[in-house]
């Protein structure tokens, strides 16, 4: 398919600009643009068609089942898109005085209260823009807390299990901490003996996802809590998997001191092909003085943004946070009410159902009931038939499903991480199960079918090594735009591109 730059014709445009009958001032010549940017030149209908065509080459939850583990790809209610466009929300400038933003502040305050309730903690900052920024903010709070106690120089280490999301260790580095990795035991829990040997007076805290990226709830969480709290260290909860436990078990009750909540996972902000997200953090009272500013507070009958927090770490993002994300997540939560518990129950039921029906056809590294997701392995398929987790994933596309997360967590070889969420009908789960069972048979009987997959997507498998070796990361106007391989013109004609 052509790039929009390849559809451009000089002189066309897709939007008029008001032209008041006023003189246009000169820009000082040394600061003025010399040659115009080569933006696309198309009339409005062709712009719309271009992006509509791009959308047909993409797959979202609206298209079909999307069991991408650790990403919680649930239904995004359409009414939320309508609500976020209400002029009273969409046209509100973030720097208006608080009296002009009472509705927005009330919504943010209610969302803070709900997140306190769901996490079992005392105070909330909505500011972080995504889960990974929530992590970084949480670790900044750790440092501020220990600095306040005169222990920042002493406590330099953060403990992270080997199953953790890559963001956890990356956040540790960005916060200026050192990483202490800890192993996983035979049941998929943190190896408590390994942990005991690694925690000491230099430990600032733990970062843990619970349930873990294996989809398993850590059965020793109380013992782990005691280990950290007995030495005065803090515990950070990566809320990526909160969808498993809403109304069932609260991170604050598990002993965690700081939690981030991925609003784009558990609370249904559409992920938009990569973002936006929202990563509010909830904290225990002893960390509240350090929260980023501003904080939304209730003040008599109204609400205001509070900046006067002498011990604040500062700001991690502009304004009070990604407001439109709050609108959608608040609306989603209000649609469930206390029924958020049923949401988590169904998510866990769906995952266990798929697990029960697939565990004989694939390897199962930890044979337990799972929470909202689980990890299978294609290790035997790989060993016996040369078929990899990647091959299974690509073949699933032929059956009309988005593949699961693959090759993660890193401790499971040929990992297939499956998270169905609560949104699916049993018929969809059954179709997916049937496809996975069929693929396991195909892998044994005709592995080339999997190696060659996908067969009917807009493109075949792509050469990622080539992309990284000689990066082409922008359209090169000067060069011949397309490097077609043999037979590609014919393919292009067939596809009507």
């Amino acid at each position, binding site marked *: 398919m052509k790039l929009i730059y390849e559809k451009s014709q000089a002189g066309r445009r897709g939007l008029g600009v008001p032209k008041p009958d006023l003189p246009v001032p000169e820009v000082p010549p040394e600061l003025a643009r010399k040659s115009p940017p080569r933006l696309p030149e198309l009339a409005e209908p062709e712009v719309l068609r271009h992006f509509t065509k791009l959308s047909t080459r993409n797959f979202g939850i609206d298209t079909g089942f999307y069991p991408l583990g650790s990403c919680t790809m649930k239904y995004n209610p359409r009414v939320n898109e309508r609500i976020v466009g209400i002029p009273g929300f969409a046209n509100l400038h973030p720097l208006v005085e608080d009296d002009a933003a009472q509705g927005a502040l009330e919504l943010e305050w209610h969302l803070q209260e709900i997140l306190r309730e769901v996490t079992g903690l005392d105070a909330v900052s909505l500011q972080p823009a995504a889960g990974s920024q929530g992590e970084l903010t949480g670790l900044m709070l750790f440092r501020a807390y220990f600095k306040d106690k005169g222990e920042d120089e002493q406590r330099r280490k953060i403990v992270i299990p080997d199953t953790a999301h890559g963001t956890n260790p990356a956040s540790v580095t960005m916060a200026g901490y050192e990483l202490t990795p800890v192993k996983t035991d035979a049941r998929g829990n943190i190896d408590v003996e390994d942990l005991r040997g690694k925690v000491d007076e230099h430990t600032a805290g733990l970062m843990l996802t619970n349930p873990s990226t294996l989809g398993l709830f850590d059965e020793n969480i109380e013992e782990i809590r005691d280990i950290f709290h007995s030495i005065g260290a803090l515990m950070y909860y990566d809320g990526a998997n909160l969808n498993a436990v809403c109304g069932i078990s609260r991170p604050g009750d598990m002993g965690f001191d700081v939690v981030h909540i991925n609003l784009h996972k558990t609370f249904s902000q559409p992920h938009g092909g990569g973002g936006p997200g929202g990563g509010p953090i909830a904290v225990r009272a002893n960390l509240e003085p350090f929260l980023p500013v501003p904080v939304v507070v209730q003040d008599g009958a109204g609400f205001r943004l509070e900046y006067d927090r002498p011990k604040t770490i500062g700001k991690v993002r502009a304004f009070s946070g990604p407001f439109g994300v709050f609108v959608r997540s608040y609306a989603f939560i209000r649609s469930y009410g206390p029924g958020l518990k049923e949401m988590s129950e169904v998510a866990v039921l769906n995952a266990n159902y798929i697990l029960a029906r697939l565990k004989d056809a694939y390897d199962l590294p930890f044979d337990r009931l799972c929470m909202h997701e689980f990890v299978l392995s294609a290790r035997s398929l790989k060993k016996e038939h040369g078929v990899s987790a990647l091959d299974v994933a690509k073949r699933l596309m032929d059956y009309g499903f988005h593949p699961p997360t693959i090759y993660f967590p890193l401790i499971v070889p040929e990992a297939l991480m499956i998270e169905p969420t609560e949104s699916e009908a*049993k018929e969809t789960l059954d179709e997916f199960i049937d496809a996975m069972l069929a693929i396991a048979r195909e892998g044994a009987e005709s592995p080339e079918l999997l190696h060659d997959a996908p067969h009917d997507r807009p493109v075949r498998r792509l050469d990622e090594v080539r992309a990284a070796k000689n990066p082409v990361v922008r359209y090169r106007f000067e060069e011949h735009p397309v490097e077609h391989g043999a037979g590609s013109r014919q393919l292009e004609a067939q596809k009507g591109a």
Partner: protein
Amino acid sequence: MSFLSLTASDRDEMLAAIGVSSIDELFRDIPQGVRYGRELDIAPALTESELQRHMEELAGKNIVDEVCFLGAGIYDHYVPAVVDAVLQRGELLTAYTPYQPEMSQGVLQAIFEYQTAICELTGMDVSNASGYDGTTVAADACFVAKHATGRSKIVVTEATNPQVRQVIKTYAPGFGLEIVEVPHEGGVTDPDRVREAAVDAAAVIFQQPNFFGNLENAPELAAAANDAGAMPIAHVDLVSLGVLEAPGEYGCAMAIGEGQSAGNAMSYGGPHYGFLAARNDYIRRLPGRIVGETVDAAGERGYVLTLQTREQHIRREKATSNITTNQTLLALAGLVHLSLLGPQGLRELGETCMALRAYAQTALASAGLEAVFPEKATFKEFAVRTGRPAREALAAARAKGIYAGYPLGRDYAGLDDALLVAVTEKRTVDEIDRLAEALS
């Protein structure tokens, strides 16, 4: 619950297949001591129509009918209808990050086109797929500069958006950075002061147009940074780049900024997108997602996430950033808006902003409001003295339905009587006359 499909018999069949007798049993691995025994204390569920009403009531408590001359980083530009139409395509709206390229060519190609647009506008070689906003991309740029130069001092001009400076300072202890601010003189930054401060610095960050709306002598600021071996980083407004020179053309190493002006409603501050672009020398140090061109097994052109060995899911604690989720959908909105405008439309947009701004400056001067920084060239924003505490002037104008601007005394000493006034292409001569009358 209308978002859930399972019937009672579905549930029974599924529990039987699992081999448990109840949903409760699925949670047996959770120790009793950490179970939540109560119902969540959240208001009862609302139906869709009840929810719509509730949200309209909340939205109705916000005041959005005052004529907006407020800017200071977020602007009341027009968002075309085609932007909304594209963003509501479910295949784009409800997709995750494009880890599986065969399922995601639409988003991947759109990001590639976005990266191209950002490079064209800024005069840079490479752009990432977006950052959170115009403040966090500045922190990202500091991280790049520190590792590229091996230096840990960051120089930032005081005339750079205060929130950008606050975010950099918040990130600084973790990054091991020292932040040095260069004061403005008469609303612009003296290149000689930058030259002194830039000694041993990793980067010099300045904003063009700066926070006061004034045009800096950006080529001289960039040269001052380059002379000291520091990376010049320009924080720019996309909408200005049809009329103002691209940072790449005057020697900047990186260009960053808030993308809201292109394609995004103000939405009380987000979600929007930050853009981050750089010279090719820094491509393997950039944070965030980058899309690259390649070919498929049939030789057909296609797109993938590339240079992933920079990223946290592979490099973990050695990654160039912890970012995963970015702002792709909002960056797509920017791309659609820019594609509609084209080069001519973008130029006209800048010219219209400048023409209305100039008219507003004259009108306010005629109404007796003195310029804070007389004789300074500006783009779409300028500062005036109101002759009384700026909040009073603001309140008086609001009583007449005009939101007149941003009180600069919030961030700058000695400017308690000053308002920063922004004029976009949506304002009219009549509205500007009302502004002048309201402030006189």
